[in-house]
Structures are given as C-alpha cells and as structure tokens.
C-alpha cells in the first residue's frame, strides 16, 4: 500500500502545483498575443487503474509458462533426409524447461497524470488557429520485466530497437524503422508523451470550412463500432481501448497532418473531404500494460517506407427530416498494417553447449545463417513447442503454418540449419522443440509490419421513428452503416509474406432511445448495436486464425463475426451524477461488462469511476475476439480538474 500512497501523493501534488498556474482566460490585446483574441483552457487529471485480473500474458512477466516445467521432445535433424527428421520424436535428447522469467503481480497496471491545454487564436471573423496539447506522465513504479535481467543468457536480447527491447518497458516512445519521427508533432519517451491532438488553422467563410494542420477526423453515427470512422488509426498506448467505453475513442484517434474541407451544399446536404498524411495505428510497446503483441516477437515497424504516403476521402451527409443518409469513398493506407516474418539480422550463433547446437555449428557457422532467418537465439523468446502453440492460438495465428512459413520463406538459410517443412502437428511440435533446445533455451521471432493501400466505400441511413408520444417506439433512432473494402490485405495466420487479400464488409445496426422512466429523473439513454463483419474480427484480424488451441491449429470462423452491444446512461437531476453501463457480447462466448459513474461535484472537478470485466463465458477462448483482453479486469478512477 505504500506504493499506492506514494503514487497518489505524487499525482495530487502535481495537480495542485500545476492547477493554479494554468488559469483559464479569455483575453484581448494583452501579453504575447497582443492584438489577438485568444482563449485558453484545459484540464489536469490523474488516472489510476486497480488490477483485479491477471498480468498481461503478452508480456514477459505475464507469460503463463514462466516457472512452469514443460517437457521438450525434439526430433533428429539429419542432413539430407529432412522430411523424416521431425516426424519421430527423439526422447534421448528430451529435456524439461521452465521459462526462466520472473512473473509479476502488480496492483495497478496504469497510473498517469494527464494534462491538456487548448489555445484558440482568432485572427479575424474567418480565420483562427486551434492548438491543443496533451501531456501524459507515467511515474512507473510497476513490477515489470527488465531485459537487462537476462543479459547474461546468450548475450541477452539483441535484435530490434534497443529503446524498446533491451531495457525496461518504454511506456510511450513511438519508434519506427527508417522514420526518425513517425509522428512529427509528438515528443515521447519512457515516462512521458506530449503531442498535439489538434494544431490547425481554421478558416470559415459562409458554408465553407477549411482546416489545415494536425487534426483528428471522426465520421459516422455509430458509437463504439467503427464503420465510417476510417480516417484515423488508433493510438493504443496509454490505456488501449479500455477507457470509458462511452467516450468512444475520443482520446484514441491518431491525429494527422491534414487538409479538411467541409461545405454545406444545401441546408440538408454536407460534403466533408480530407487529404492527410498517412499515420498508422500505434500499438502499445513491448511489456507495457496493454501490449497486444507477444513480447517473444521483435517487431520491425516499416512505417519509414510509408511516412510520405497520403490518404484521402469524401463523405456526403444528408438530413431530410426523419431520414438521414451518408455515403463515403476513401482511398487510404490501412492504419492497422499487417505483419509477416522478416529476417532477424541478428548474427548470433546457436550455442554449442547442447548436442543439437553443437551439430549445427559443426555443419555451418550458424551466426550469419541465423541472421538470415526470422529467428534470434536469445532469451525472452519462445522456450517450448507448447508455449509456441499456446501463443499462436491466442493471437489467432496458425502454429504449424507459421513454422513452415518461417522455414520455407527463408531458404536456403533455414535448410542449412536442417530445418524443414513440417507436414503434421507432431512434426512441427518436435521440430520446434528441436530448435528451442538447439538455441540454448529460446528463440525470438522477428516480424515486420507493413501497410497497404485500399479503397473503402460506405453507405449509411438513419431513421427516427414516430409513435405514440412517450411510448417506447416513439423517437427511436435507427442507424444502419455498412462499408466494403475490396481486396483488403490481412496478416496471414502463418505470418507469411503472402498476405491474405479478401473483400471485407462491415455493417452495424444501431438503435438509440431516450426514455423517461420517472418525472424525477432525466431520460435514460439506451443504445443497442449489432455488428457483422465478413472476414475479420473487431480488431481487424483475419477470421482464418480463429479456433486454434494448445494442441490444434486454427479452423477459422465461417460466416463472419458478430458483436452485440447494449449500453445505457442514466443522468441524475441536473446531470451532476451520471451512471452508465456498457456490455459487449461476442456470440462465440466473449463478454465485456463495464459499469461506471461520473460525478461532477462542481464546475472544475469531475470524478469518474468504472470497472471493466472481460471473460470468455463459454467455448474456446480463441473463438471470440474479447479473450484477447481478458487479462484487463480492472477498476479505473479518474479525477479531473479543469481550468
């Protein structure tokens, strides 16, 4: 509890010191902005998460194989008869291993101090500048993995960006290979990030609105589900997608340098177009609280090859009384990107301290050959075939196909190491154990992240019903949105460089209703939503990687994926308290529940508390999307002071 007290004290002190210094203002002709009208406002908010679930299994210190004894049974790689090498287990070389990484047990997974400041400058009636800066500080104090703790094992972790893979977790830095500054208006490091969600000139004249600069763009009427909301990727650092569900990504959209033009063609019809620098979705860094890429991988984000690319799109939105329509056409780089095996570039030989490694090194100097494969003989990787298959299924990959792609696509290097295509699960299992033993413990896998251009077309319609005043069917807002992306590129569950290309359709039906149960309380807001996706899941992963287990490869999901949402908000009189609840259900067995309350005791202060519960309530967890975040059962408290 001392750690908790220290953290809260540090946050409260920071807020108290900063608060008075940042008084709100609406001034004219004074100080720096002499002659200009300007506005200034913002808030400071400590955010604290209490963990009630497990450690994140995607991190080194949350790996369920840590300290757990697992038997490894290799095959017998024989030069010239590769096809037979791994079908038959070789018990003589079998061993038992426990993953030698210490597990953690944190009471909190996230505690930060957030500050936001917005400056509005008004040059004249038509032209202004909006600058919003967001700063986040995480003091750390987590029980967490430090890569230096395994430095004595085969020289430690060698590949990848040293800032991300060779020390303590880096909470906020955003690094991409070949791009010195992936987000030009962001400054971030291990404990902090400062960036501009908005920094743009705003020009308005009559029905014309032009915005030029760094900005976020939100399209569509569907909440929670992103159908039309395609212009921006998401920033999944910080609290991933686990903030208050009903805030709806407002904190997450990655801002981009863009030109946005809005034109009110008629009273009913609005045109909205953008042209922007491509900015990808930003994933949490390795070993940070909400990282979703297993830390046994080293990721080479190739955004440097794409940071001069652009996305653009047009949306038309019409409102005609009870009816509303919208249509969009977008040409963009899919911000989520796709992953494939890539050569590790790590020249580190298999150790000769074991018979298998000794044989390999006798045949060839293995260091340069390993550099040409997707693997690195270092600690903190996968230690056993059991771990391999467990994780493959967990992240919706195919453990056998993945092994084969890692071998077949990196010939002749892999052949020189006596690796061969595995035809069966058992052969793959034996072959994997063979190389984990040969590697002296574990292998780390190297994957590259690339981005592909695509067209997204969308249509939407909304209708507001009219019924008996006060009845449940009166003023029900029905909204249907659908999008289609021809030849969308997906990560292959084998991590092959031959990506999957499929036409993908995403549709959402949303029904919203405000209903007063009593005269004493304001209306309750209800929303019911259903989503159907033909080829991918809620997070954009191909459904072909679904259905795997520790002992079987994925079977894929036929018929697409479906999700249901039910949520409500109940304001209390004067809206000083607002209770909320959101449920997301995956009919394949996943469930997310999030009750919460927002309390606004006075103008400057806002206190929010919500609890997130995620679990697989039936079936194979790897058949539902939500199991990916199962570890994140937690309560969150946020105390905001605005000025």
């Amino acid at each position, binding site marked *: 509890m001392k750690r908790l007290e220290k953290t809260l004290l540090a946050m409260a002190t920071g807020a108290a010191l900063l608060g008075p210094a940042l008084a709100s203002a*609406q001034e004219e002709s004074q100080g720096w902005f002499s002659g200009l009208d300007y506005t200034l406002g913002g808030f400071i908010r400590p955010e604290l998460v209490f963990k009630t679930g497990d450690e994140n299994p995607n991190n080194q210190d949350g790996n369920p194989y840590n300290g757990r004894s697992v038997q490894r049974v290799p095959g017998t790689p024989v030069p010239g008869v590769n096809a037979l090498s791994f079908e038959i287990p070789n018990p003589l070389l079998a061993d038992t291993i426990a993953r030698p990484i210490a597990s953690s047990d944190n009471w909190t997974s996230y505690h930060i101090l957030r500050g936001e400041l917005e400056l*509005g400058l008004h040059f004249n009636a038509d032209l202004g500048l*909006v600058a919003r800066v967001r700063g986040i500080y995480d003091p750390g104090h987590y029980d967490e993995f430090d890569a230096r703790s395994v430095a004595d094992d085969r020289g430690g972790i060698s590949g990848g960006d040293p800032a991300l893979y060779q020390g303590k977790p880096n909470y906020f830095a955003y690094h991409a290979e070949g791009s010195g500054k992936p987000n030009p208006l962001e400054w971030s490091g291990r404990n902090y990030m400062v960036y501009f969600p*908005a920094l743009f000139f705003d020009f308005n004249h009559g029905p014309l*609105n032009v915005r030029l600069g760094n900005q976020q763009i939100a399209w569509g009427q569907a909440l929670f589900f992103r159908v039309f909301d395609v212009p921006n990727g998401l920033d999944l650092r910080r609290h991933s997608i686990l903030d208050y569900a009903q805030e709806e990504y407002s904190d997450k959209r990655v801002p981009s340098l863009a030109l946005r033009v809005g034109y009110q063609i008629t009273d009913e019809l*609005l045109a909205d177009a953008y042209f922007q620098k491509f900015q990808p979705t930003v994933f949490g860094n390795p070993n940070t609280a909400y990282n979703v890429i297993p830390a046994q991988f080293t990721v080479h984000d190739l955004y440097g090859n794409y940071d001069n690319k652009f996305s653009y799109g047009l949306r038309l939105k019409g409102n005609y009384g009870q009816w509303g329509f919208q249509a969009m056409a977008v040409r963009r780089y899919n911000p989520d990107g796709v992953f494939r095996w890539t050569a590790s570039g790590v020249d580190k030989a298999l150790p000769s301290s074991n018979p298998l490694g000794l044989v390999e090194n006798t045949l060839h100097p293995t260091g340069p050959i390993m550099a040409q494969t997707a693997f690195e003989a270092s600690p903190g990787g996968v230690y056993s075939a059991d771990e391999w298959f467990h994780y493959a299924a967990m992240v919706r990959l195919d453990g056998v196909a993945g092994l084969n792609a890692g071998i077949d696509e990196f010939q002749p290097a892999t052949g020189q190491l006596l690796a061969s295509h595995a035809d069966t699960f058992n052969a793959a299992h034996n072959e994997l154990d063979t190389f984990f033993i040969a590697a002296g413990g574990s292998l780390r896998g190297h994957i590259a992240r690339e981005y592909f251009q695509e067209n997204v077309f969308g249509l939407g319609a909304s209708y507001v019903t009219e019924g008996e005043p006060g009845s449940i069917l009166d*003023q029900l807002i029905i909204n249907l949105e659908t999008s289609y992306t021809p030849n969308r590129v997906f990560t292959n569950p084998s991590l092959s460089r031959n990506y999957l290309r499929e036409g993908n359709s995403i549709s959402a039906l949303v029904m919203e209703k405000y209903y007063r149960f009593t005269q004493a309380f304001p209306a309750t807001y209800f929303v019911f939503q259903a989503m159907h996706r033909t080829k991918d899941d809620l997070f954009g992963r191909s459904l072909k990687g679904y259905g795997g287990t520790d002992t079987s490869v994925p079977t894929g999901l036929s018929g697409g994926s479906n999700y249901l949402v039910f949520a409500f908000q109940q304001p209390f009189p004067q809206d000083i308290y607002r209770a909320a609840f959101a449920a997301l259900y995956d009919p394949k067995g996943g469930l997310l529940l999030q009750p919460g309350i927002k309390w606004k005791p006075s*103008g400057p202060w806002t206190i929010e508390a919500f609890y997130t519960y995620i679990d697989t309530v039936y079936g194979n967890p790897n058949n539902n999307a939500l199991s990916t975040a199962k570890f994140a059962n937690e309560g969150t408290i946020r105390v905001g002071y605005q000025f």
Partner: protein
Amino acid sequence: MRLLRYDRQYSRRHFLQAVRSGAVAGGVLMPLWDAIAQNGEAAKAYPEELQSLEAYTRGRLKAGDEIDAGNVELVKDLLEPIKYQQIARLGRRLKVVPTTQDIMRLSPWEYLEATVRNRGLARFDAQGNVVVEGGKPWIGGNPFPAPQTPVELFAGLTLSWGRHDASFYAIREYDLAASGEIEYEYESGWAEFSPVARVTLTPKPYWPGREDKLRYQSVFFVSPDSIKGTSFLNIWPYDQHQFPELYGYVAAFKRIRQFPTNQRFEPLIPGSTLYLSDAWAAGDPLYTWGNYRVVSRGPLLASVSGAWNAGHPNWQHNTHGGPKGKTFWDTQVEFVPEAIVVEAEPLKFPRAPVSRKRVWFDARTQLPIAMVSYDRRGEPYRSFDGAYALYESGARRVMDGQHPYWSWGHVHAFDIQTGRMTRLEQVRRISGGHDFKVNDPGIFDCYLTNAALMRLAAS
C-alpha cells in the same frame, strides 16, 4: 382631495370580468392597441391607478424605492409567487424604476412597426398555423397585437422569440446550489434565425425556398474545457404540430449526431436548471402544448427595461441576495399596468416533469415577463424570469441598424423545490471571439448548419 374617476375596484372588477368572459385583449378604458396606435403609448387605455406604482400603492412605494423583505407585502399581488418567495425569504431585492410609456422602447423598432403595419392580416389556417391571405406564412411583427384568445398570445410569442430576424446572444451562465455557491459556470452562444416573417433582413418577408421553416436555432458551449464544442441545432418546421429536428455535437462522441426531437426537458449540461422547453417561455411548438387558458390578469412588477449594464465593458451584471450574495441579479422593475396570465399543459410530453406552466404576458407588447411551471403533483416547480432592455444608457448605446438594440439582459431560472438557481446574462463577447450580433445574415452560416456545428466543435 382629488377624486379618481375610476377607483381601485374598477380596474380589479374589469380584470375579473375579462377573465370570466374569456376576453384577452388588453386595455381597461379603451382597447389597448387602439391607444398605442394613436401615439405609441398605452397610458390612455388605463385609469390613473394603473399608471405607476406610486399611484397603485397610494404613495407607499414609488420609482427609486427598493422592494425587499421589509415591504414586499405591499406589492405581493404584483409579483408572481416564486419571485415573492425569493424576496420574502431569500434576500432578493428589486429596484423600482419609472414605467416606460413609449412603446417603441419595449421591443425592436422594426418589429413594432411591422406589428402596426400588419395588424389585422393574420389568421389561423385549418391546421392552426398563423398565415396571411392566401395561406402564406406570417409576414412580420406580432400577428395578434390585440389577441382574442390565449392561443393567439402564445402563437405570437412562438413565431418570434427575440423579435429580431437574426440574433446571436453571447451568454454567461452561472449555476448555483441552494447554499448560494456558484458550482458551475459556462459560456455559451445562442443563435436564432428566421426564414419567414422577416422585417429587417432581405429578402423579406421570406427567405425563398425556406418558407416551410419557422426558425433555425442553436446553442453551443465554448467553456469550460469539458463541455467545449457541445452544441444543439434545432430546425423548426413552420407547422406548429411538428417537433423541430434536433442535431447535436457531443464532445465525448466527437461528431454530429441526430437526437430525438422530443428531448426538450433534459438537462443540456451538468448543473443547469434550464431545458430547451424553457426558451422564451415558449420553447416548444405551439400545439405540443394545449389547453391554453387565461387564469388571471392585472398589474405586475416586471423588468422590461434597464437590464443592460452599460458600465461593464462586457455588459456583465452584479448580484446580491441568497446565502452568499450571489443568487440574484441586480434587477430593475417597473409597474406594468396589465399582465395577462395564461396557463398551458404539455400535451405531447407525457413523461415531462411539468404538468402545466403559467406565463405572464405584458399586455402592451405580448412579451413574456415571467413563467412558473408546476410539477406533476401540481406543486410550484421552477420559475423563469427575464429582464429586458433597450441598450441605451445616457450617451452609451448599442445600435441595431438605425435604432438602439433591444433585447434581454439577464434571466433567472430557479428550482424552488431544490433551491438551485441558474443565472444567465447576455454579454458582449464570450471566449472564442464570439460577439453578440443582431440582424447579421452571417449568423446562419456561422452557427446554424451541420457544418457550423462541426466547426464549433473545434478540436
């Protein structure tokens, strides 16, 4: 000793008789608007005792005096019930100023001109909408300056709220707890724009192609940070049976969304006691309410002048009263010779928290000068009292074309059941460079389209 030709009981009897008979038109001695049409003053329509507070109280109170808890009993029957309670129990004070005689100082000049010019041309069509000969929409001014029914009073008010063709009000809002502390402060903008019944903006009286609309109206918030960008746009059909379309930008959702049109009794922001339905005491389409009836009439003390604080560069007002001296605006009231009190019930809001509302109209101008609503048990619930002004004070004036600007200056919205108060004041400017505007055609593109909501959302 001076003999009064008409004693106190004469006007009282006249008003009681008028209520019993269902007559609505103002005036005791002669039809009020006949008197106004003669020389722009109402005085000839009323006996001497209704010419001033001094005459009415037989000298016990007069212009320049202050009404407080010590003397409020003298004027109890000149106050709506919640205002009386505020003075008697909560320390509210009212400064009495002379009664304004010149009718042209009590509303916008062009509106009153059109009222006189178009007198007698208005009628209800088969649907109950106000039209002129040929069934076209109303052409400007008050359609029923000498109303014959209570619906005509509300019809005139609903047709034009602020009595300008286009208005943009820069507003500061203060929400107070019963303890008298200010808990929430907001800055907001409120825009009104008429595509019909235009008396100033060209083309007039109609904006071609939009004759089926009565009003475009929006409200948006510019501070504090948590609420910044939140906005609501109402597009009113001319047909007063239909609800306005309602769009909103909710800061948390970062996009414009359509809302149910009947959400008119919901708090727009935390702490506020105001509903969309409260606007100008006639915030909903005419026939979503019903059972209009005159329940009483007589003189009233009301703030129909002096609500502009010319002494403050941003027109901000001073306060007094309540536990912390912050609950009430400093308010000037004058003796209004005749107020017509009309009651109505919400017909199309079966789950509204109010069962009826009572609105006091100044018989001379048909302006709403007070409103009290009642909860579902019939208990007094909330009051809404506004104060008006011609924006002219000595040498200082704010111009609206050729004439000084006329508008509201401040408003109290009070929940008598919880003691919570919302105070609003019209100021010159709010954050974001939004200045008050009147009859500026640019108000439409700036504040009253979906693109405008998107723009106001800023970041």
